[in-house]
């Protein structure tokens, strides 16, 4: 409690004077901020280096393109794969084209690729960036350190393809919340959004919603890693408690977020419907899309979580019944890999060198004869097969068309049944109309009308259909030469998928 007194007694301009050297704790915060700052350097660097490119590229805002690229990659990251390289380039081009509309498309594409390659940093062997910063050690000496980071990294996909993912560093740079906890930042973003919406500040709300989505992606990514990892390993996992607990926790989390985001959705929808200003309406509609996307990602996460249980059991069956062996030998992982990794590379090298020298087997030395050498040098170069083996022509057999009605008949029937929503018709009238054009058509119309007596409402909603054919029996009998039964009232119902979801809640 001495500090307030001392501040009072010391004149303000002196409070910034010499202080004792900051301790490691204060320095750590500085180091963290320096590292955060370093993550933005590659973006600034793009605008600095664009002058060196062959050609006149100063019209392009490279940092802007780079940020847009990081956005695109982040939003296209799914569970299994990352974003596709070419797709990102294609989506960047409209923005680049807007910056310089008179330039050729090839140049726009070149800019997109240049930016993307620089974000990956293709030129370096690590494909990453390095920044140097200085810190004080606990004993007061000053040390310069290398900070290695990546913004966009390339990850292996299925079938040897390469996908792009944004790193945590990049997401943090993008969102601007540097060095924060994933969970708490997500909650904060959502709370902010709710407040903003309740005050009607939609412009800010959209920004916050986008931030929430980035956070959602980042959070899913963290869980994906944990979950994927867990699925692989059975014997090493505590089956009784830890795994079920973890899954329960994750499911609770998803349910919580889902509830939360649905609440937001309801609020925004209200804002959208109540707002008079068309600009507000549009903004709110965009927000609805963003939050929907968040919910979709959570649903995806949830289905992953539900798959984990059966997978564990299957693996358990497969692996757990092997009889344990009594012998013990070297535990390669526990005795070698684990101790080696934390060592300084100088020392670790001795161990890996020893393993390499004796673990690679033998090679029979090559002895060259001059005769062979001449043959080798004179041999024409091997032609590489670019296209692979020739595909055999597939032997196709046409399946006989045994449908009762032709495509044209179906189209005619559908056209006939495409009634205005406010004018339903009797089946008898429809049948008479159909008979005029085609004697077979009434059968199809009658069939469709009977089907419509029990329309698949739920499916239509899920598929986002706008309208649905229905038919109702009001007791009138059908008077028709070919058909008997009830003279159904056939009509078209308009569906409002969004409205139903609101009511359903």
């Amino acid at each position, binding site marked *: 409690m001495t500090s307030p007194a001392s501040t009072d007694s010391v004149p303000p301009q002196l409070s910034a004077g010499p202080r004792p050297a900051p301790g490691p704790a204060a320095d750590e915060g500085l180091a963290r901020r320096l590292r955060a700052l370093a993550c933005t350097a590659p973006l600034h660097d793009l605008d600095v280096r664009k002058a060196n490119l062959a050609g006149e590229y100063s019209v392009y805002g490279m940092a802007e393109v780079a940020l847009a690229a990081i956005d695109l990659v982040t939003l296209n990251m799914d569970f299994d794969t990352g974003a596709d390289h070419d797709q990102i380039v294609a989506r960047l081009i409209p923005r680049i084209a807007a910056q310089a509309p008179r330039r050729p498309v090839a140049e726009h594409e070149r800019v997109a690729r240049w930016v993307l390659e620089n974000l990956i940093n293709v030129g370096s062997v*690590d494909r*990453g960036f390095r920044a140097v*910063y200085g810190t004080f050690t606990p004993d007061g000496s000053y*040390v*310069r*350190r*290398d900070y*290695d980071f*990546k913004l966009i*990294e*390339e*990850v*292996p996909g299925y079938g*040897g393809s390469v996908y792009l993912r944004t790193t945590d560093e990049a997401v943090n740079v993008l969102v601007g919340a540097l060095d924060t906890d994933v969970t708490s930042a997500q909650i904060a973003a959502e709370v902010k959004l709710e407040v903003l919406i309740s005050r009607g500040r939609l412009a800010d709300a959209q920004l916050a919603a986008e931030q929430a989505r980035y956070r959602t992606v980042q959070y899913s990514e963290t869980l994906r890693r*944990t979950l*994927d*990892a*867990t699925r*692989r*390993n*059975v014997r*090493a*996992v*505590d089956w009784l*408690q*830890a*795994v079920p607990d973890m899954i329960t926790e994750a499911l609770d989390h998803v349910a919580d977020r889902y509830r939360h985001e649905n609440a937001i959705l309801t609020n925004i929808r209200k804002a959208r419907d109540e707002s008079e200003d068309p600009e507000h309406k549009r903004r709110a509609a965009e927000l609805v899309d963003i939050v929907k996307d968040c919910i979709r990602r959570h649903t995806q996460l949830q289905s992953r979580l539900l798959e984990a249980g059966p997978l564990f059991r299957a693996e358990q069956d497969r*692996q757990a019944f092997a009889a344990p*062996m009594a*012998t013990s*030998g*070297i*535990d*390669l*992982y*526990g*005795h*070698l*890999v*684990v*101790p080696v*990794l*934390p060592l*300084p*590379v100088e020392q*670790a*090298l*001795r*161990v*890996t*060198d*020893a*393993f*390499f020298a*004796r*673990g*690679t*087997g*033998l*090679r029979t030395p090559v002895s060259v004869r001059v005769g062979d050498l001449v043959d080798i040098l004179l041999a024409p170069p091997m032609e590489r097969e670019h296209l692979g083996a020739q595909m055999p022509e597939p032997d196709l057999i046409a399946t006989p068309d045994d449908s009762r009605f032709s495509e044209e008949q179906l189209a005619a029937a559908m056209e006939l049944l495409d009634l205005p929503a406010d004018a339903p018709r009797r089946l008898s009238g429809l049948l008479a109309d159909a008979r005029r054009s085609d004697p077979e058509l009434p059968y199809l119309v009658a069939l469709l009308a009977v089907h419509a007596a029990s329309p698949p409402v739920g499916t239509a909603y899920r598929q986002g259909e706008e309208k649905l054919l229905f038919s109702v029996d009001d007791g009138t009998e059908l008077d028709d030469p070919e058909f008997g039964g009830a003279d159904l009232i056939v009509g078209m119902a308009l569906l409002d998928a969004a409205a139903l979801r609101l009511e359903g809640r």
Partner: protein
Amino acid sequence: MTEHVEWSEPEAAGALVSSAVTPADAADAARLVAFGLQPKLQPARDQEYAELLRRYREDPAFARLADAVAAGLGLVVLEVSPRAGMAVTAAEDSVFAVRMGDYARRASADAGDRFLHGLAHLAVAAMAFPRPEDLADDGYIGRVSVNGVDAFVRQACRRLEERAEEQGEITDPATDAPGLEAAWRIWARRSATGATKDARRLAGSTTGIVGKAVAFLTDSGFLQRTGDDGGGTYRTTARYQLQVRDMAGSAAMAELLELGIVPVTDGTATLLPAEDTDDLELAADAGLPFHSRP
């Protein structure tokens, strides 16, 4: 390894078999060793090889002669059996030994690359034989995939990174002392893959380095390719198990002990459930049960 050399010393062997040995016997013994130098050749597929192996196992004098030939060539006999064949490997400084400089050109200049290549081989072995029992069990066949090895090493690195962060350590190395950088960081900061112009694996990426290692081990007759999933899947051969168990593992352990690091060992696997049950970080894509508790 040392006793093999001892009981196959040329003088001792020579003194014992000199009375009976004929040039034809010597030719047969050398022929057996020559078969052993073709690691991909399987005894079951070659009648002459199988016949020589049978003779080795039934005729002690012939066995000593073959051992002597191997020792004279700078080879160590690991096992002679129908399953592994004449399993020989290069002694240190033998003409048959593989040198890192020949293996990867960049590795001779760059200590980081050299470490990555060495660690790739160690990690492939650790993935192939995840438990001590697997290494000891002659009937065990390990399975690895390129992406699995990379994912598993990365997982271990990530655990170390998290641990360092928890303890508030700064792991960024000092600029003027790259040799003091923690080994795991070298792997962690190298990219896992990368796009190349001709759709081949980027040689400098970690999957490229692991891919090179498994391809090399396949040429050594240590692995057999079984599929293309996960960047290429492989299964181990008896020879690889012998090589890792009798040569590489112990050599690396000796080096580690010389550095003053004694891995705590009570004879049980490190793959048992972790004591802290919240520790659920397991190697993704590994395809084998790995507990990545460093």
